[in-house]
């Protein structure tokens, strides 16, 4: 592929490898598997937010700075925000990340000095990304804010070796656009999920896999194993930050047919398993009973509450149990006691 480096590595990977001195005499750059060490302790920030007309940018900015994300780190960086856009229904806006949360995230990153912020998504159900973009209300917001939206489903891909190795997939093909950005931020929705128990920042990254290579739905990942694919994508992509829209989430038969659940929170952090585990506890779900989270623990990041420093609101103060459905096997036995 035209945008692929000789080893299928991102510019970011190559720079990291050079910085750590791993240049070997073959004339090729080889990045050792363990040059990147996943944190085993993490901080998450929980903010109360009852509705979308609040100063979401201010809330996110405060959360980021509390988590140590400052101008020194963000200055001049190109930030890619990946929302959760699946399909649309005027009666069910809680399917997708709310556009005003995206606007808040954009403003917060720009306030921190980001060089550019963009939004990108490759919906898994609809071939017509533009329709989802428009009908979700996101187009109105981004057009007004003059923020670029990228359709990831039709973009040229570049392959990276599968760093997770939980599926049989030897490589994963990501959008070439990712080679041009510095940060990838999963801006997900707080939802139950009928295959995985919960869908949060980690599962949200299914949407970065281009439909032209993975189909609609992203059925390659289903046949490879949903839980395993979540782990492989996250282990390979190494996203930088997560923001969860839990102002109004989805309970019951998520991710598309469930009921709205006003949870009144925004949750964020650098480590995605830690953020998702925190969200699970807020939703009344035991993260150790969500297979991909349990397996991510002590590998991609911590999910134990003892390993996650909780900032902002306490989990106990915002916990609101999301409805689980007895007949859905992924919901059985996952309630946090």
């Amino acid at each position: 592929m035209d945008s692929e480096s000789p080893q299928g590595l991102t510019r970011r990977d190559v720079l990291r490898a050079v910085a750590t001195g791993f240049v070997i005499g073959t004339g090729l750059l080889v990045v050792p598997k363990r040059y990147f060490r996943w944190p085993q302790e993490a901080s998450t920030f929980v903010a109360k937010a009852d509705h979308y007309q609040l100063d979401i940018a201010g809330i996110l900015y405060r959360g980021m700075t509390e988590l140590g994300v400052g101008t020194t780190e963000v200055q001049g960086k190109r930030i890619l925000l990946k929302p959760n856009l699946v399909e649309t229904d005027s009666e069910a806006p809680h399917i997708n990340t709310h556009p005003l949360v995206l606007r808040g995230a954009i403003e917060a990153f720009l306030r921190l000095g980001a060089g550019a912020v963009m939004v990108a998504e490759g919906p898994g159900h609809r071939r017509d990304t533009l329709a989802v973009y428009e009908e979700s209300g996101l187009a109105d917001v981004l057009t007004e804010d003059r923020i670029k939206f990228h359709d990831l489903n039709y973009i040229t891909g570049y392959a990276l070796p599968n760093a997770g190795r939980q599926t049989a997939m030897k490589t994963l093909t990501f959008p070439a656009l990712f080679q041009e950005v510095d940060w990838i931020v999963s801006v997900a929705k707080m939802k139950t999920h009928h295959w995985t128990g919960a869908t949060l920042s980690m599962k949200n990254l299914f949407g970065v896999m281009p439909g032209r290579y993975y189909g609609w739905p992203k059925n390659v990942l289903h046949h490879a194993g949903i839980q395993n694919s979540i782990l492989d994508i996250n282990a390979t992509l190494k996203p930088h930050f997560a923001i969860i829209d839990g102002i109004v989430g989805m309970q019951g038969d998520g991710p598309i047919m469930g009921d709205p659940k006003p949870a009144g929170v925004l949750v964020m952090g650098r480590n995605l398993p830690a953020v998702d585990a925190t969200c699970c506890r807020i939703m009344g779900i035991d993260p150790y009973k969500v297979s991909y989270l349990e397996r991510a623990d002590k590998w991609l990041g911590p999910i134990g509450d003892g390993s996650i420093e909780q900032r902002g609101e306490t989990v106990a103060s915002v916990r609101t149990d999301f409805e689980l459905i007895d007949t859905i096997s992924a919901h059985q036995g996952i309630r946090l006691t």
Partner: protein
Amino acid sequence: MNSRLRADGRAALLGRVLADGGFPGRPRGAFQVDSTAWGILALSACDGPTKVLTQARHLLMRDQLGDGRLCVDTTHPASFWPTSLAILAWEHSEPCRDAQQRAIRFMLDTTGRHFPRTADLPSAHDTMLKGWPWVGETHSWVEPTAMGMMALRAVGHGQHDRVQEAVRMLLDRQLPHGGWNYGNALVLGTELRPMPESTGAALAGLAGLAERDAVQASLTYLQQEVIRLRTPISLGWSLLGLAAWKHTPSNAALLVERCLANQERYGEYETSALCLLVLGALAGREPDDPSLLISSPVDQGRSGSLHH
């Protein structure tokens, strides 16, 4: 009106042709197989120059793999969904006849992954009915199946067992209240939502192969839906699907104009989306025009060497 549409479409598409031939995905981007196949179909429908079409068809032949498939790119051989598009793009081109025959053979020999139903399966459809997948070793889904049917029907295989089974597959995946989505009708007993692009593709694929009564609810859904559509993939497929059943909306031209105007907001459309819109705009205006993607639902009965 038609001549103006064709002239406008031709000008827009010729503006996308790459210096070395073929079409890019995004304007001023790199050559893409699927965009080139769509470009050939749309440019043919607009009476595009033979030289440009010939060059584009040869570029598709260049990228065909040995077993007949056309992939999104050759490093991803499982992504063979452009094969049905290439069959259509090579139609009526004698120099491409061998390549087209190999692509037809590939389609007839290829299915998605199918498996017997088990009690715990959350979906409700017949998992054994074969159509075509987007990507190898995955399940059959609505749009690639519809495209496969259109391609095989166009080359005289409308009565082939594979096409007839695909008809049953699409009808089985139809939503109880009408319409199709990507291919799951019910999950955990809940009926999912229809999508205009999937519904349009399915209706286009089924035209001439299914009874009107069997798809009436879907036609009704799409007739109600089409008037609010503003994006090219949804609108293009919807117009193609409705035209195939002779239900072209009276304000189709207005809908297309509105959709084109949306480029001021979103930027120039991706080539395949633009081509779908052009084909949708022309569909139903001259029902016997063989250059249109959905020219006639009637199987020509052409007996090729691969006829079952």
